[in-house]
């Protein structure tokens, strides 16, 4: 066991891409957790999708052993966290398990929205914050300006901020020394009844369900019978260890320490994050304060391209959920798309990532419908139904409009942080999206605008637009602020006079026409020309608000014969046929799956 005084638990927090994972690499390397040969860039980002996109999605914990300049060897438990707002819950969990945080700020970008959001959370936990100004190797780095920003905007002392380059390995030892010197050791009582926080859980194909714990009091060791206080289940601990980042078995995890256990748990559901673990005999009586439950805010339908893949989709979604309890799913059926699932996500990036993992890791071809939010609808009395309230997750379930007395939609409070040259266009974007400005402040060449916005305008393509308007410099953070009444209608998209249910959406009446026109124009480019001309319409009820026409195909023929080489033409036919199998047919029009996806992702032009 390690003496409490020689333990340090800290998270690395920052805005997206400011270099947390790269810094973690250097810390691991410096302390000898991995040899240079075992090392790779952002070694903790071990999911394929993390590696490809270069972002962290899941928080990771590593234990490092560091011999400090004072001659003592310290046990450092480092938690690398994601920077993207969709995964903010990962940060909050990690913070709850630590006594301090390394606040990484990009020396060229300065303080951004997630810097603030994460640091405020950390302050709420009474953490000691060690500021690190990273990427000082960049030509555009302005460390002194950023130091001032940290003091002005966040209001913490940055006079001793470490100047570092995670990439070139500058300042790494200084960071480790600052961690030892500034972050307080944990408290804890080895002899008190066991009290451990269930920080995270995931499914590992070899170990089964793995649980990350932070022990507050007492000790966890192999063979111990433990109780999950909230879940109410008992389990026998059969393995105890930590990641260095290699998995290493340990005899025990003592007070103040972070490590993992396995306990023959069948389903991740049983190991709910935020639960308190204690012993079955002589256990603690009072549970720790748990985490706030995360609620999905964006919904969409996911359907297999090939109806025969439905079962495979069901199994794959269930398996994925084992590692990501933050998304929800329930079965759904669509007239056009067949059977599939209505899934809920923490945000659009989360949606995109789940979709990509399903298609990649599970080899599924999916059609994803337009993202939507949850509406609350008051229905009036009808001949054979009482007045009642429904929650609408899916535009396809939109009720008979004559029965609707009131529709409410979720609103958010958005804080946008931007260099002030982009402010004008950003304010316009917010206005166009029905935003209400509640605050606008300037600090140094930067502006912070606070808006109340309807969430359905944000899931649409707000984030993409914001990024493109500001060339990636504006950052954005939001929280939900409840439901408000809105003049919302269902808009149908008709292709060759047939409604395409997967493309129907709920929109505010004031933006319906613009949205409809945009969608029709988009589809016009996305649907290949057919042998006949195709009208595309956007309609609210019976009223067409926008219309485009795709001209008929004029030429598609192989001009010449290659002697008796038929196989060439046959290959072409095979290819065309295979292409068709990936399409959905509406009113004799074959719509490629790519067209659905692209039409639904309307932001990027």
């Amino acid at each position, binding site marked *: 066991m390690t003496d409490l005084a020689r333990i340090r638990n800290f998270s690395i927090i920052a805005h997206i891409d400011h270099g947390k994972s790269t810094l973690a690499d250097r810390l691991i390397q410096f302390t000898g957790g991995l040899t240079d040969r075992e090392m790779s860039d952002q070694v903790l980002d071990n999911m394929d999708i993390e590696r490809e996109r270069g972002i962290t999605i899941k928080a990771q914990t590593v234990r490092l052993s560091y011999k400090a300049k004072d001659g003592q060897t310290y046990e450092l438990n480092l938690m690398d966290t994601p920077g993207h707002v969709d995964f903010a819950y990962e940060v909050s969990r990690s913070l709850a398990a630590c006594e301090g945080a390394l606040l990484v700020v990009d020396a060229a970008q300065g303080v951004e929205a997630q810097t603030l959001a994460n640091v405020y959370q950390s302050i709420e936990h009474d953490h000691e914050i060690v500021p690190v100004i990273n990427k000082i190797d960049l030509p555009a780095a302005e460390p002194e300006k950023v130091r001032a920003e940290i003091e002005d905007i966040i209001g913490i002392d940055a006079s001793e901020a470490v100047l570092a380059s995670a990439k070139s390995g500058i300042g790494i030892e200084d960071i480790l020394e600052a961690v030892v010197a500034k972050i307080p050791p944990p408290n804890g009582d080895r002899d008190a009844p066991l009290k451990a926080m269930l920080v995270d859980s995931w499914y590992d194909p070899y170990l089964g369900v793995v649980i990350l714990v932070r022990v507050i009091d007492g000790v966890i060791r192999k063979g111990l019978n433990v109780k999950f206080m909230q879940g109410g289940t008992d389990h026998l601990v059969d393995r105890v260890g930590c990641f260095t980042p290699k998995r290493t078995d340990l005899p025990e995890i003592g007070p103040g320490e972070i490590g993992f256990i396995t306990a023959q748990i069948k389903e991740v559901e049983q190991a709910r994050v935020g639960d308190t673990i204690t012993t079955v005999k002589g256990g603690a009586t009072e549970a720790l304060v748990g985490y706030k439950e995360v609620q999905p805010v964006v919904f969409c339908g996911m359907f297999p391209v090939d109806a025969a893949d439905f079962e495979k989709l069901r199994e794959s979604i269930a398996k994925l959920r084992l590692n990501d309890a933050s998304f929800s799913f329930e079965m759904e059926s669509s007239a056009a798309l067949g059977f599939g699932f209505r899934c809920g996500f923490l945000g659009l990036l989360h949606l995109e990532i789940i979709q990509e993992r399903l298609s990649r890791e599970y080899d599924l071809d999916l059609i994803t419908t337009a993202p939507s939010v949850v509406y609350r609808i008051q229905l009036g009395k009808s001949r054979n139904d009482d007045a009642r309230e429904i929650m609408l997750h899916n535009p396809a379930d939109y009720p008979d409009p004559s029965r609707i007395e009131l529709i409410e939609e979720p609103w958010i409070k958005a804080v946008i942080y931007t260099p002030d040259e982009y402010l004008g266009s950003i304010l316009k974007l917010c206005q166009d999206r029905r935003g209400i400005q509640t605050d606008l402040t300037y600090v140094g060449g930067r502006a912070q605008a606070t808006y109340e916005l309807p969430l359905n305008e944000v899931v649409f393509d707000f984030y993409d637009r914001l990024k493109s308007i500001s060339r990636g410099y504006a950052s954005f953070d939001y929280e939900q602020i409840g439901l408000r009444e809105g003049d919302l209608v269902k808009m149908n998209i008709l292709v060759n006079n047939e409604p395409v249910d997967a493309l129907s959406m709920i929109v505010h009446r004031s933006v319906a026409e613009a949205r409809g026109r945009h969608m029709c124009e988009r589809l016009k480019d996305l649907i290949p020309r057919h042998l006949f001309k195709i009208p595309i319409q956007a309609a609210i009820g019976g009223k067409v608000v926008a219309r485009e026409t795709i001209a008929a195909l004029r030429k598609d023929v192989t001009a010449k014969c290659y002697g008796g080489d*038929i196989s060439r033409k046959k290959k072409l036919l095979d290819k065309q046929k295979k292409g068709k199998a990936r399409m959905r047919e509406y009113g004799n029009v074959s719509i490629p799956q790519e067209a659905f996806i692209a039409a639904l992702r309307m932001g990027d032009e």
Partner: protein
Amino acid sequence: MARALYIHWPFCLKKCPYCDFNSHVRDGVDTGRWQAALIADMRHEAALAGGEPLHSIFFGGGTPSLMPPSLVAALLAEAERLWGFAPDIEITLEANPSSVEAAKFASLALAGVNRVSLGLQALDDASLQFLGRLHDAAEGLAALEVAQRHFARVSFDLIYARPGQQADAWEAELRGALAYGTGHLSLYQLTIEPNTRFATDVRQGSFTPLDDDPAADLFTLTRQITAEAGIPAYEISNHARPGQESRHNRTYWRYQDYCGIGPGAHGRRGGSATLRHRKPENWIEAVERNGHGLREERSLPATEQASEALLMGLRLNEGVDLASFERRFGLSRLQMIDSRKRDLHQQLGLVWVDGARIGITAEGMPLLDALLADLVCENLVSA
């Protein structure tokens, strides 16, 4: 039993920038060696698909007009010995219209060739230069004149729908071509094939191919003018006065058996597809080693045969007879043609149905590939 024989001669003086045929530029081809190899390859086929006299022979390329006439004569003599010739056999040779080659026409005719297909490609110097051809317009026309003197049947090829080509310019060119009074014409729209110089040029923006819409207009115009001139289209790109159709090519389109010898040649015999080594060196070594140049011989399931028969047959104005396909492939009409799509396209005026026959209308022809993708049943297409 195959009654058609294709012989591939893979050599050219220069590779044209649009061409992705199996053609190669080589110095010093050993014609003696090639003659022996082609004869060996021919014997192999005759042993498997002989028995009936040949109706047609086609020397294709590459540039078969580069073959010494004595080689052509030797091959024809051997073919006649192996199969026998039907009295009205059609023997076609593809020729490039240079003066050197025109000088050979007399001896080629003596060797037995009775039909030539001349690669004029265009009738003006600028276009010929764009197409990278070695001949100019005058030389081409002179070659045509010599050909018409020596062969009873002459056809020539033009490549149209060239970049920027206007309808009136093409109309004038086509009317000029019609004035030579040949019984047959092959009029191909320029296709940018992958892995050709033109494909690179287009990618680098050196020129832009004609858009599909104007190309479709040119296609319609071509059909109209040739029909008025009494030499209507009988296939997508082929036009003939009545009775002057290429019998050999019609064998492919009607999906009857044919033997194919020489590098890269394809054949269909007794429900099998044959394919020979493509590269000249590989082919000739294979023949010398094995006595034949076969690289692949695969028996085709009935479904695949049916899809081939449809995609070839529907190129012809005459369409296909589904009743005969039912007997031949043991599949019902409904298993071959998607009836819902057939009805839809019939309504659109792109497909015609006449009893058991089905075919593509003049309006449908420029859309054939798209129509096939709709009409041919899913289950016919190989997985």
